[in-house]
């Protein structure tokens, strides 16, 4: 097991050295991050006259992992999957992801740009009786800092914007024919993680 790990590390180091060389060879790359989705919501207080609004802050847990190929020394493309735990929706986004080094720095710290676009699924969500939660489109552009280690791995700190759509159909009350809620989660994602 240890041998295998060492072998993996070795190949990584090897690959990393290749990326530095002019003749770059594509290799596997993984970025796994955990963090929070920060935001707020402004809503109408039902039946208030005159209509008044209330503001509440929102914070949700987010876990995400990017698995892809380092195509060029500065560009990686792949698949981003994860878990976003909103208060009343547990969504699983599956997205196409791009990671690009914005700076051509020789130093250990690099600025990276990230972009993920895909769909958030409701696979892990459990509904209350009478409710039906559907996922929706997801878009997330952002920037991050990559602190490289000598081993070739790196530590990540990222800040991105996340837009996630969802739709919930609700049980009907008296005289109601149809009722649903359209949601757009607009959140700031602050994440910490590792890349190898």
């Amino acid at each position, binding site marked *: 097991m240890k041998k295998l790990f060492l072998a993996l590390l070795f190949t990584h180091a090897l690959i990393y050295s290749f990326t530095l060389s002019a003749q770059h060879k594509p290799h596997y790359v993984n970025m796994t991050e955990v963090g929070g989705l920060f935001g707020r919501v402004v*809503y109408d207080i*039902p039946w208030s006259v005159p209509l008044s609004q209330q503001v509440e802050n929102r914070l949700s847990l987010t876990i995400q992992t990017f698995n892809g190929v380092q195509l060029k020394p500065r560009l990686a493309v792949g698949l981003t999957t994860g878990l976003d735990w909103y*208060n*009343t929706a547990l969504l699983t986004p599956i997205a196409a992801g791009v990671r690009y080094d914005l700076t051509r720095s020789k130093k250990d710290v690099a600025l990276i740009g990230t972009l993920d676009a895909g769909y958030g699924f409701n696979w892990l969500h459990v509904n209350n009786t009478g409710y039906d939660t559907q996922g929706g489109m997801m878009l997330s552009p952002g920037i991050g800092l990559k602190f490289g280690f000598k081993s070739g791995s790196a530590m990540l700190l990222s800040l991105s914007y996340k837009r996630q759509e969802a739709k919930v159909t609700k049980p009907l*009350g008296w*005289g109601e024919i*149809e009722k649903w*809620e359209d949601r*757009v989660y607009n959140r700031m994602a602050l994440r910490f993680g590792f890349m190898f």
Partner: protein
Amino acid sequence: MKKILLLSLFSVSLLQWSCTDQCTETRKYKRYTSVSVSLADIRQGVRTESARDLINPGKIYTKGNYLFINELKEGLHVVDNSNPSAPKIISFIKIPGNGDMAVRGNILYADSYSDLVALDISNPLTIKEVGRENDVFTTGQFEGAWWGVNTLTGVINDQKMEIVTETVKTNCEGGGNGSWWGGVAFSAFDSRALQSSAPTSGSTANSQGQAGSMARFALYSNYLYTVGQNEMQLFDIRTPDKPRRSTKINVGRGIETIFPYKDKLFIGSTTGMFIYDNSNPERPEQLSVYQHAMSCDPVVVTDNRAYVTLRSGTTCNRGLNQLDVIDITDLRSPRLLKSYPMQNPHGLGVDFPNLFLCEGTHGLKSLNVANDFDVKQLQHLTGMDAYDVIPLSSKSLLMIGKDGFYQFDTSDPSNLRQLSKIPVKRVDI
């Protein structure tokens, strides 16, 4: 390099300004608003118009080659059904406040809010009003909206039902309580004809049509029987074009349907089924009451069996969804034989040994009821809305739903064949 850093930092932070969840709840509901209609206008309002599309169909009634489809509160569509594979809407009879109808010979009886109108339908293209009995019904309802008459001022106080769409910003926590957003005080009673029956063969002379059992109108002997919320009003129709009001009998509360079978009357209410002996057509006498849980309940009868469906729904709160088979060999003490669970049964029609049952949005079911204790499902048609059926002796079935009027060939009850469909042109819902 610095430029890129600053630019990207700037753009990302700009996006953060909009980090506010945007959630809107949209709900469509029925809203009732008061309207007043003058009796004078109503009494001038009956006329024949050119054919129009089905918008909000109610009860159906068939007579010979013609079909009458009620357009709630508006009047009746006249359909030429000589070829069930290609029915054709030929005209529209405008009758303000109409919901029920019955036909004998060439005379069609229809309600028009508080009045009973007799129409000559010998030529379906030019239907004329021939008789009218004023102020016989005091109250009634359409789609949960009640109307009442004020005879002093000559005004009908009615309610108009509208479908309203409302959108509010929510806190994105849709798991909350639905009643938050309030409800309309009125329950959504469905005034449609939800029930139906097999042909009531051999009842009386003079060719008369067939109605669903949910019909509030029934013809027997020289009388037209109409049921209101809690009473039964009889009309003497010895002179067919001049209906005259006759006896009025108090029945009970929440009366929904009247179904004549041989010399008996079966009256369905929200609390049970009343059986009346009609051997003296002028004075029907109550024989018994079969009580059940409070719920919406159409009744159909064949020989010594009655079939009652109970359904849940906004107005039938405690309702169960089931089909009850009742032994009525002894009319003075009806006996429940067995209950079968159903999804949301509305109208039903029996053509022994077959029973056709409307399951609302769940479609239409064809059942075999030959064995009371082992009712078998032969077929379940889905993908359509089913409210009301009339099985005809010619092995065909008329069915009305929210999405259209259907006709089926029932010669093979386990494989109903759709003959035709008149679609409903509806803006909302």
